[in-house]
C-alpha cells in the first residue's frame, strides 16, 4: 500500500475491506414464505447489508445485527437468530 499525498484515499468505497459482520451477536434470517418483497428492510438498513428482493438477500459480511430490519418488517418475516427463537 502506497501512502499518498495528504493521506488522500483513491479507492472509493474500500471500507468494504473491513467486514463489520464480525460485530454481530444476533443474525437476521428471513422466512421467505412470509416475505412480500416490500423492500422496507432494505430501505432501513444502515450499512447497507441487504440487497432488495423477494426475499431480500443479506450480505452477512457487513450485517451488524442491529435488528432494525426485523423490527420494521410489516409481516414479521425476519427473526433475529440467537434472540428471537422460541
Amino acid at each position, binding site marked *: 500500500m502506497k501512502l499518498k499525498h495528504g493521506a488522500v484515499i483513491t479507492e472509493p468505497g474500500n471500507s468494504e475491506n473491513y467486514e463489520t459482520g464480525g460485530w454481530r451477536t444476533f443474525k437476521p434470517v428471513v422466512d421467505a414464505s412470509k416475505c412480500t418483497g416490500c423492500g422496507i428492510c432494505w430501505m432501513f438498513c*444502515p450499512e447497507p447489508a441487504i440487497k432488495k428482493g423477494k426475499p431480500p438477500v443479506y450480505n452477512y459480511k457487513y450485517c451488524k445485527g442491529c435488528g432494525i430490519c426485523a423490527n420494521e418488517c410489516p409481516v414479521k418475516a425476519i427473526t433475529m437468530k440467537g434472540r428471537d427463537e422460541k
Partner: protein
Amino acid sequence: MKNMSEIELFAPGHRACAGCGCSLSIRHALKALGKDVIVSEATGCMEVTSSPYPETAWRVPWIHVAFENAAAVASGVSRALKALGKTNVKSVALAGDGGTADIGMQALSGAMERGEDMLYICYDNEAYMNTGIQRSGATPFGAWTTTTPVGKVKRGEDRPKKDVPAIMIAHGSPYVATASIAYPVDFEKKIKKAASIKGPTYVHVQAPCVPGWRIEGNKTIEVARLAVLTGAWVLYEAEGGKINVTFKPANRRPVAEYLKSQGRYRHLSEQDIAAIQKVVDEQCKKFGID
C-alpha cells in the same frame, strides 16, 4: 419507494454503531443526490466512522477538514466548480448538529448570507455523539447527556432545542426543510428538491443515536417515527420562507410515548413531561398540525 435508487454511494464496512440513524441518513441523502456531488464534511460521527485511513466508505468525492467549517469548505468547492464551469456538479456540506448549531454556526451563517450555491445537510442526533454524548445547542429540553447529567441539583438539559431551520429561513434561504430517517421517501424528495434549487439550501434530518438516546439498536426507526407522530419533530419545507407541513400525523399521540421510548428521558417527572407536552402543543398549533 419504487423510484428509490438502488445505487449505494455509501459503502458498508463503515464503523458506525449497529442501528445508527445517521449512517442511514447519509445513505439516503446520497441516493437522492446521485454521483455528481462533492461532499465537504465536518468532524463528527459520520466523518470518523467513514474514513479510517486507508479506508473510505465514500463513493463520491469527499473532503473533511475540521469541525466548524463544513459550510466554508463547501463554499470554496462551490466557487471552484463555478470557476471550472462544472455546472452539473453540486457542492454539498454535511455536518452533525454540533458542527451546525454550535461551532459551525458562523461558517453556515456566512455561507447563507453570501448566497453560496450549495446544499447544507445537517444530520441531527441531538448531541455531540462522536465525542461521547455531550450536549449541543440541538439537545432538547430535559435530555440526559454527559454534560447535562441527572444529579441531585440538576436534572438533564435545561435549555430548549436551538431552532436551526428557523435561523436558515431567517437568512433568506430559498429552500429549508426538516426530515426524519423514519420517513426516507419524504427525506429523499426534500434532498432532491434542495439540490435542484440554486442554493444555499438547507435540509435538517433528525436521526436517533443508539447509545446517545439510550435505545436498543433495533428501535432507531421506531423512535424516529414516534418523534414525528407525537409532533415533537415536525416535517415541513419552507420555500422562499413560506412554510408547508409535509406530514400531519392523524390522531397525534401524547409526547410521553416518544419520551418514554428513550433512556435519556427516563428521569423525567410527570410535571416535566406535562411541560414538554405544552411546548409540543404550542409548536403543533404554530404549524397547524392538529
